[in-house]
C-alpha cells in the first residue's frame, strides 16, 4: 500500500507540475516543437503579459507540433472554437500555408487574427569568404548559371524561406525560376551551418536566425528584405535600395478562435498592445533581431485578409500552387 501511494504521489506530482494553474490561466498554443519562432512568441509574449500584469496567472504554453501548424489550426477550429482563454502563435508561415491551401482545406476566416507585435525581416546571407559582395553580384551570377547555386533555408520546399530568393530572382530577370535549387533544413541555424561549410552557396532566412553568426563574423548579409534598414543593423542595405523591390518579413503575432465575442477579441488586442508598448518586449526584440511592427485588432485582420490574397497570387505566379 505504501509503495503504491508513493508511486501515485510521485506520478501526480510530475504530471501536476505541468498542469499548474491550467484550469483558469490563459493558454498559448505554439503549433511547433519547442525552440522555434512560434514557441518563442508564446513563451515571450506569455511571460511579458504576466510580468506587466496584463494577465493574472502565468500563461500556460502548449506545444502542438504537426502539419506545419495545421494540426493546431484544425484543433482550434474544431475543438476549441469558443474558448476565450486561448491564444495561438502565428507568423507569415501561417498565412503562407493558409494561402497555399496547405492546411487540408481550412481557411483563414475560420479564426480571428488578433495582432502582430514585431517583424522578423527576411535576409539573404552568404558565407564571409564568399566571392559575392552585393545582392546584385549574387543574383546576376545565378541568372547566368542557375544550376551552380543552391539556397539553404529553414522551411520546407514551397515555404516562405524558399519564396524569398525566387521573388528576388524574378525581379532580377530569371525567367524559369523552377531551375533555382533549394534545400529545406530543420531550421535557420542548420541552414547557416551548411552555407558556412560551403555546401550551399547562400542562405535565405530571417534576421533573428542570423544575429549570432553576424556578430561572430562568419557570414555576410547581402540584403535585408524590409522597407527600411533595421535599427541596430544599420550597415545592412535593404533589397529595395539595391534595386529589387521585394519586402518580405516574418511577422510574429497571435490568432484566437473564431467563436469568441468581439469583446474578447478587443481584450486580447489590448493585451497585445500592452506587450508591444512594454520595455521588456523592446528588449526582447532588440536581442532577437526583430524590427518594430505593431498592428492589432481590426486593422490587423484587414492586413491579413489582403496578405492572403497577395500570397495566393504570388504562389500561382511562381508555380507553387495551380
Amino acid at each position, binding site marked *: 500500500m505504501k509503495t503504491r501511494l508513493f508511486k501515485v504521489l510521485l506520478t501526480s506530482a510530475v504530471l501536476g507540475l505541468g498542469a499548474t494553474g491550467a484550469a483558469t490561466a490563459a493558454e498559448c498554443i505554439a503549433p511547433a516543437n519547442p525552440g522555434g519562432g512560434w514557441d518563442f512568441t508564446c513563451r515571450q509574449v506569455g511571460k511579458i503579459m504576466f510580468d506587466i500584469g496584463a494577465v493574472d496567472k502565468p500563461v500556460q504554453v502548449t506545444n502542438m507540433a504537426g*502539419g506545419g501548424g495545421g494540426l493546431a489550426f484544425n484543433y482550434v477550429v474544431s475543438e476549441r472554437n469558443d474558448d476565450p482563454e486561448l491564444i495561438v502563435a502565428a507568423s507569415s508561415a501561417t498565412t503562407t500555408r493558409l494561402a497555399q491551401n496547405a492546411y487540408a482545406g481550412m481557411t483563414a476566416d475560420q479564426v480571428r487574427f488578433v495582432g502582430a507585435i514585431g517583424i522578423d525581416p527576411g535576409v539573404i546571407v552568404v558565407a564571409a569568404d564568399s566571392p559575392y559582395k552585393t545582392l546584385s553580384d549574387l543574383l546576376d551570377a545565378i541568372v547566368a548559371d542557375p544550376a551552380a547555386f543552391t539556397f539553404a533555408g529553414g522551411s520546407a520546399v514551397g515555404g516562405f524561406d524558399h519564396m524569398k530568393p525566387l521573388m528576388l530572382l524574378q525581379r532580377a530577370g530569371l525567367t524559369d525560376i523552377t531551375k533555382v535549387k533549394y534545400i529545406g533544413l530543420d531550421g535557420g541555424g542548420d541552414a547557416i551551418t551548411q552555407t558556412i561549410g560551403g555546401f550551399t552557396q547562400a542562405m535565405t532566412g530571417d534576421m533573428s536566425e542570423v544575429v549570432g553568426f553576424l556578430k561572430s563574423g562568419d557570414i555576410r548579409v547581402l540584403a535585408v528584405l524590409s522597407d527600411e534598414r533595421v535599427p541596430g543593423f544599420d550597415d545592412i542595405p535593404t533589397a529595395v535600395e539595391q534595386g529589387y523591390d521585394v519586402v518580405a518579413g516574418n511577422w510574429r503575432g497571435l490568432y484566437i478562435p473564431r467563436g469568441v465575442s468581439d469583446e474578447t477579441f478587443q481584450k486580447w488586442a489590448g493585451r497585445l498592445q500592452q506587450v508591444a508598448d512594454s520595455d521588456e518586449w523592446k528588449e526582447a526584440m532588440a536581442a532577437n533581431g526583430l524590427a518594430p511592427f505593431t498592428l492589432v485588432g481590426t486593422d490587423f485582420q484587414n492586413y491579413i485578409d489582403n496578405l492572403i490574397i497577395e500570397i495566393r497570387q504570388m504562389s500561382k505566379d511562381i508555380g507553387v500552387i495551380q
Partner: protein
Amino acid sequence: MDILQNLAMGFSIALSPYTLMLAVVGCFFGTIIGALPGLGPSNGVAILIPITFTLGLDATSALVLMTAVYYGAMYGGRISSILLNIPGDEPALMTTLDGYPMAKAGRAGDALVLSGVASFVGAFLATIGLLFLAPMLANVAFLFGPAEYFALYLLAFCTLGGMASNNQAKSALAAAIGLGIAMIGIDNSSGLPRLTGGNLHLFDGIDFLVAIVGLFAIAEVFFFIESHGRNTSIGVKLGKVKVPWRDIYATRWTMLRASGVGFVAGILPGAGASLGSFMAYMTEKSIAGKKGGFGTGVAKGVAAPEAGNNAAAGGALVPMLTLGVPGSGTTAVLLALLMTLNITPGPTLFTDRPEVVWGLIASLLIANVVLLLMNVPMVKIFVRVLMVPPWVLLPGVTMISFVGIYSLSGSYFDLLLMIGFGVLGYILRKLDIPTVPVILGILLGGNMENALRRAMVIADGDFLYLFSSPVSIGLWIAAIAGFIAPMFLRNLLRKPQRITD
C-alpha cells in the same frame, strides 16, 4: 589558466545554497521523469519550463534547474530499461539489450549501479570535453554537409546487421519496416505529403516516442493479458544493492571509449543521444566479438550505451551553445528556455555572456555529482516506483504511457497510433522478429533520406557527390568495413579465441 578562472567564476555563480537545492530538486524530478516510459527528457524539461517562470527564477537559477532535470532524465531513462525492458526515453533503448537480461539473471542491482557509474563517467567526461573543446568543436559541424550526414547514417545502418537477433534476415526485415514507417509524412524535398491518406496528424510523420512506447510498453501489456499474468517479463526482483566493484573495474576502458564515441555523436546536430548510445554499443560489441556475449546480459553491454548516451547529452550542448543549433530534442527545449531568458546562443555567446556559459558548465558538473550520489545509494527508492506487483504495475504502465503520449501533441490520434504499434509489436514478437531495428529505422530513416535528397538536389542527381569529401569517403570506408568485416573477421578471430578458451 583562463579556463580554471572561468570555471571558478562559474562555480561562484552556481554554488549558492539556493541553486544547490534547485540542482538536487531538479535531479530528483529529472530521474523520475526519465524513468517513466514515454516522458522523456525533452518532455520533462518542456513541462517544467513554466515552473521557472512561476517561481520567478533568474537566468542562472533557471538554467541550473533545467540542466539538472536534463541530466537527471538521462540518468533515469536506464531504470525502466533495466527493470521493465521498456526504455524510459529514446537513448535508453540500447540499455534494454543487456540490462534487462542481466536483471532477469538476478543482477538487477548490479546493472543499476553499474549503469549509474557509467552514466556518471560519460556525463563527466562530456562536460570536461565541453569545457575545453567547445569553441574548437563548433567547427566540426561545418564539415558535415548532406553527403557526410548520409554517410554517417549509412554507417549506423551498416553496423546494424548483427544486432538483436540470431537471424540476420529478420533484423533486416525489421529495419525495412522501420524505414517504411519513416517515409510517412511531408516529403521535405518536394513539400508533398506521402502515405498520409490526407490525415493532418500524419503530415509530420510518426513521432518516435509513439512508436517506442507502443512497441515496448503496450506490446508488453498484450503479452501480460495473453498469459494471464504468468510468465510475464515485467516485475524483476531487486535484491540487496551492492556496488559491483569488479564489473566497474572490468568495464573501465569500455566506459572511456563509449564516452568518446557518444560525445562525438552528440556534437553532430541532429544525431543526438540515441545515435550516441547506439554507436557506443555497436563499437563495444564489435571490439568484444562473439565471445563478448553482448545481448545476454554482460556488464560491458550495460556500461557502453549508458556512458555513450550521457556523453552524447553533454556533446549535444556544444552545437547548441556555440551555433544555436540544437543537437537533440532536449537541447532544442533548452534552447527555447535560453531564448525566453533573452540569451541568444550562437558563436558569440562565450564572449558575450561568459557568466551564463560557465555558470551552466559548473551547474552541469554539480548536477552530475548530485546524480551519482543520488543514484547509487538511493537507487532503491527510484526502483520502488517501478517495483509493485504486475497487476498494479501494468495498468500503471498503461496509464503513464497514455498520459505521456497524450502530452506530446495533445491528440487522441497518437493514442490510437500507439495502440496500433502495440499490436505490431505483439505480432513481431510472436514471429520472433526483433523490434529494436524497427525503432532505429524510424529514428534514423527520415534523417538519412533527407540527407540523401538534399545531396541529390545540390549535385543535380550526380551520385559521385556522395564521395566528394575526405570526411564522407572515410565514413563510407568505415561503413563498408563495418558491414563486411564481421563476416570474415569472425572466422579469423575465432581460432585464437578457442585456444584461450
